[in-house]
């Protein structure tokens, strides 16, 4: 009985949560405010005047036209919008823009320009880890977040690092292989092979 009440409250919460949306983080917070946010985006210093509590995802896609970062759910549940903030993988749809003030943001477009991290992209191609590709940018970012901290992760660590990224096409198998391959390749580069 109690369980039922808790469950239906939970479901009610799930039902109303579309008020978390693409543009702004908290729809309820309708106040207009002005804030200047300074951050480094893919190696370039940016200063942005924000009028609303925009999500980082909205800013990336609509202000800077960096559409490689995807909107998959807008509720922090799929990982399609992952970016690195100060080398940590986070869901951009759940980050209000003012939270990145003073920080460094790297998107999938930035990964391509990074000689070390672009090895991950090469590995994804070689391991056949890409089907529809909608999850791919987020997956690469999560892999980057992992490999920047643990250069030779175990399979378990890889699976854990990817658990916030949904993929409906690959069953994750080739993606996990891609991360292992990337780790090996990065090691080879480091060892100067």
């Amino acid at each position, binding site marked *: 009985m109690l369980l039922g009440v808790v469950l239906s409250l939970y479901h009610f919460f799930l039902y109303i949560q579309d008020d978390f949306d693409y543009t702004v983080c908290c729809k309820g917070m309708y106040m207009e405010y002005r804030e200047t946010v300074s951050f480094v985006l893919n190696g370039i210093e940016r200063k942005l005047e924000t009028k609303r509590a925009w999500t980082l995802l909205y800013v990336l896609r609509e202000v800077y036209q960096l559409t490689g970062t995807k909107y998959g759910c807008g509720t922090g549940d799929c990982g399609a919008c992952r970016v690195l903030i100060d080398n940590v993988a986070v869901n951009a749809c759940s980050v209000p823009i003012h939270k990145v003030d003073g920080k460094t943001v790297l*998107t999938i477009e930035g990964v391509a320009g990074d000689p070390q991290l672009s090895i991950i992209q090469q590995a994804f191609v070689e391991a056949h880890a890409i089907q529809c*590709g909608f999850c791919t940018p987020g997956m690469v970012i999560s892999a980057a977040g992992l490999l920047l901290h643990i250069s030779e992760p175990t399979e378990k660590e890889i699976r854990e690092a990817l658990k916030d990224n949904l993929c409906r096409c690959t*069953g994750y198998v080739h993606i996990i292989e891609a991360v292992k391959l990337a780790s090996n390749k990065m090691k080879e580069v480091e060892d100067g092979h």
Partner: protein
Amino acid sequence: MGIDNSHDTVGCSPYNRESWDKVTGNTQYIDDLRFKGMLHAALLLSPHAHARIKSIDVSDALALDGVHAVIHCFTTPNILYNSAIRFYSDIDPSEMPCTERVFDQEVKFVGDRVAAVAAESEETARTAVKLIHVEYELLPSVYSLDEAVADAAVQATPFGISKTNLCGGWVAYGNQDEASVLQTIKQSPLQSVSTFRTSRVHHGYLEPVAHVAHYTPSKKLTLWTSSQSVFSFRDVLAQLVGLPQNAVRIIKTVSGGAFGGKLEVMHEPVVALLSMQTMRPVKIRLNRKEVFSSTRTRHEAIITLSSGYASNGRLIAQHVYSLLNTGAYAGSGPNTVGAQSGKTFVQYDAEAMYYRGACFYTNTPIAGAMRGYGCPQLMVAREVHMDGIARKLGIDPVQFRLQNLLLPDAKNCMGKPTHQALGRVCLEEGAKQFCWEERRKQAIAKSSGTTRYGIGVGTAVHGSGWYSVYQDMTSVTMMMNNDGSLQILTGIHDLGTGAKTVLAQIAAQTLHIPLDTIEVIEVDTAVSPLDLGAQASRSTYVGGNCVLECAQQIKEQLLEEASLMVGIDEQQFALGDGDVIEMVSGKRISFASIIDSAQKGLHGKQRQIAAVHSYASHTSVYSYSAVFAEVAIDVESGAIKVMEILCVHNSGTIINPAQCEGQVHGGVQMGLGYALSEEMEIDLETGRIKNPSFKGYHMFRSHQMPKISVTFIQGAEPSGPYGAKGIGECATDGVAGAVVNAVAHALGGVSIDHIPVHATYVKELLTQNYRVQ
């Protein structure tokens, strides 16, 4: 003879041709397209499961700054259509009932379209939607399939046959009449009857549904959508907006996952009408909650199987009785029943078999095409039923199936040829690789404390293309470029599975040219030749055959021109590495010089080396699989962990093994969710979906996935391109059966009667089991 085979690509695994753009974030999916002056649309979706709209007041919405248009049932065409048509003439009311309108005055489920707004931004459009005032008259509604099929049920829609909820009609046939089949079952030495329920699940593609429409003053409509079937979309759209088909252009964008979920027209007519009203490009992108409520789902099913068999395990007769929930509209419901019916006769052998099935309307989200198209429901129900029989007889489930699966190069009970029916080989090979017998025993032995282990098996079968259930065809255009490279225009829709890569491989193999000199240009109704869409696991088999035959025509043209150029008989040539080679002398003539000769008419008729080819499939071939699963169950919590999955597939020759394996992996992920975790829960008080988010709807994540092994049994199918058959749907059809049977094994042979098997159900089953003991 100096023939160069270095461009043999069939059986190799070149990378998916779209990989680099995708992995660098360069691929433009529909949500990434930007147009000057583009407006954003948002939908007002019905909060009621069944109601008649009495009035709509849009004045407040229109008054909002930035709003350009609001449309609803009182301002849009009142035309009935079916969103799932394939051929233009698909209007048979028993197969394709027309039940949908762009906006209907009678809303039929929570999430049905009520109105739409076009505004300067998505946020403004969504705000405006909240300012639309609608007066509803509530109507009685029905949500569950059981209630919908009952006598004197509430009618979910006005379209049910004879005031019931029956949609389309019954599909009922067998190799004997129904009464005789039932009689044979009754007279068999032993009988089993079981009823199994499968839940409504969602495709869960990562790319939310989105469309962009642009209508211009020259009275032309262009629509970008992540569609699986642009030509039928064009046919529906043209009719709804009142334009000839030449004035409606549908462009397929790169698919961010579809699995059948983007096969049917969804909100495309809405953006088209908004664009026609505003003369601006209009885009809609659903949020995830809307994707769950207002797109398509898999048909919920209740399937009863009755079998008669001998004590030695030989199946004598089987009867399938299947009820599907089509939701609020017909869409592909009756077709799904039809496709399901066909699978009854192509898996197991018996003297007598009969299928009876139908779909029913309810006031719930629309069911539609989803990977498997009626097959996963039947396969899981049947495989659980078959295990039940094996258990009753005390026969090993693998042995029991081996006794009854169809033989290759034989005839099934309907008298149809079984072709390369290698289901038995898949099963035998899988049993060997999985160490079936030992592990079956070990599972019981190693169960201790609170952990129970179980091993299970499930088989499946799936067609490659529509034939013979329906007509099937596709067309391809090929044009040689001046440098000897090749353009292929195809209507085959690549959904991310690498169809374009496979077609390029087939063309490369046929013309002996490098893969990177082939461009495959995907679907656009203004450019591509006709195709029936990405469905029925047909892309490789039907599309591949078409590409193969078209490439052969190009080859003939090249040889003919070469023969004119050097005055040697065509038979004396071979192709190699982008050249035509004189077999005797080894002299090479480049494709480029042959093309030049043809274009200038230097030796024969002045022409372009190009071909248009239609391929009609007239063979119904099937792909087969056997799936093996091991599960571990914690009896205290009821939690099930899938430890390992082995999939053995027969899909003929595998053109691109890595890609094919990747599809199987994905099929496993979908099948595991179907068996254990995924379910769109409908509130039976309100008709609302209780869990319309990825938080509440549980798809398997990386840390929950088992170890997966994949083996292909490669018997070349004579009618397939280089021997290939389809894989897409077969990849998921057999998974749930294997997992459920493994769970039943772990729990000491309990009867499981529905999926998903949640932890709570496991605990129920445990008490059942202990009671039995």
